[in-house]
């Protein structure tokens, strides 16, 4: 376990070296947030609420999901690079779980994101517009739990995409298509309250709303305790499903690896 913790720490410190990148990350999130605020100001046109959703709730949705999506960073091409340059052999020889090590590094990176991206952005955004406070202390805690579960859904999806590089020459295209689908259906670019019903009926059967929108709704206290349970179990079920798929793909891929010399 300590080994994995080392990976978390290394990645965290590693990221500290690239200060410029995280300043850029903050600027980019703030600007995206600003755009959505301007758009929805124009759309609301001074109306207090639309369908029971106030402007500050929309702002909160955008802020939280944009901040989270900027924290959740995944390098979908990691395994591909390792395969390309033959490093995969060394990785497989190491006496630790490859996936565990990837996860540890990713956690380190995202922990960094929370400290130096999420919190500063949140702070700056408070000066831009009015943001809803969490409905209660409990809903804030539940929001954190839900957001972490959302992270694991994304992580397992990313791992599945990564393992595909055993069979696909370049993973960039698939990775981009995945990101497009998540952007549209997860509520980062359009709050799911305003999606047409037939899209919502479709999303119900997918993991997309569990990534950002479930945490946001929990934060706003929009869910009853019954729904809360359903939401959490949906998140966990998706994590398990993707974990199994990823595991099978990894096992198949591992068998397929042929390393030439070294």
């Amino acid at each position, binding site marked *: 376990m300590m080994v994995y913790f080392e990976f978390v720490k290394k990645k965290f410190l590693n990221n500290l070296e690239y200060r*410029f990148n995280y300043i*850029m990350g903050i*600027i*980019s999130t703030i*600007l*995206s947030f*600003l*755009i959505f605020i*301007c*758009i929805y*100001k*124009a*759309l609301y046109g001074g109306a207090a609420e639309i369908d029971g959703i106030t402007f500050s709730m929309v702002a909160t949705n955008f802020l939280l999901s944009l901040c989270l999506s900027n924290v959740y960073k995944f390098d979908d091409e990691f395994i591909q690079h390792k395969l390309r340059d033959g490093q995969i052999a060394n990785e497989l020889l190491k006496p630790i779980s490859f996936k565990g090590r990837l996860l540890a590094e990713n956690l380190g990176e995202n922990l960094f994101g929370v400290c130096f991206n999420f919190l500063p952005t949140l702070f700056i955004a408070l000066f831009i517009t009015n943001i809803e406070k969490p409905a209660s202390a409990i809903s804030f805690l539940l929001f954190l739990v839900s957001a972490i579960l959302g992270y694991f859904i994304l992580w397992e999806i990313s791992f599945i995409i990564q393992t595909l590089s055993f069979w*696909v*020459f*370049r993973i*960039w*295209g*698939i990775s*981009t*298509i995945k*990101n*497009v689908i998540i*952007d*549209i259906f997860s509520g980062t*670019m*359009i709050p799911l309250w*305003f*999606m*047409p019903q037939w*899209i919502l009926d479709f999303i119900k059967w997918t993991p997309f709303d569990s990534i950002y929108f479930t945490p946001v709704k929990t934060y706003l206290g929009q869910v009853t305790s019954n729904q809360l349970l359903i939401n959490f179990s949906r998140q966990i079920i998706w994590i398990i499903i993707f974990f199994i798929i990823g595991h099978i793909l990894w096992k198949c891929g591992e068998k397929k690896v042929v390393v030439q010399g070294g």
Partner: protein
Amino acid sequence: MIKDTLSMFWWYSKTSLNSRLQYKFDAILTTIALFLGQATSIVVVYFTLLKFDNINGWNINEMVFLFSLLFLTYGIFVIFFAGLRDFKYRIIDGAFDRMIIRPRGVLFQLMSINSDWLAACGHGSLGVILFIVSAHNLGIEWNIQTVLYYILAVIGGVLVQAAIFLFICSLKFFFGETDNLRWLLYGNMKKFAGYPISIFSKGIQMILIYVVPFSFVNYFPAQFFLRKEDMQGFPEVYMYIAPLVGIFLYLISYFFWRFSIKFYKSTGN
């Protein structure tokens, strides 16, 4: 001379496309991904306007028309100017040193060696589709005047973006690393450009008109055809000079490039 230049451009394009098509499945996937990646913003606008009907008076067709100019100009931009986009790598891998000693213009070589036809297909096809659909739905009247204006506006839009890239590439001769600056100025401001600039605060409007002039790529040209009410907030003349702004800016950037290239130092052997 011109014939010679064109045939060389053609030859370079063919080889660079050929190298990408070595992996056919990947080439198709990349093009689709680029297409979808760009389409995200328009899909979001579509869903949003299903609910809200219009953004500051702009309905879905008008929004699509606005977006189409952005995609179309970028699609053409990457055919001719992808070399400026990938300029960093040409310096790192030493290709730029080779270009300098060849008996052809450096800028011409940069432009022709790197044409990114896959990106052109991905962005351009989306632009063309959106343009045809929206122009048809809006019932835009086409005569010699409007056709000419449209063509010039697209060329102008390409040149505005080329000017921004060329300017930032020129800065590289003085400062070394400028990719972050480009991303800050170009990548971030482009996010704003898809929407009518009248919805933004005065500060952002000023940036989009005078600093990173994306408004001349799509907003003012689109206003020439649509004449929406929010044009009142801006000088009307901008609509008419929009196609010229690109040429003017590109010339400035070009002279700055000619000046800065003298300061080039190679990265190594």
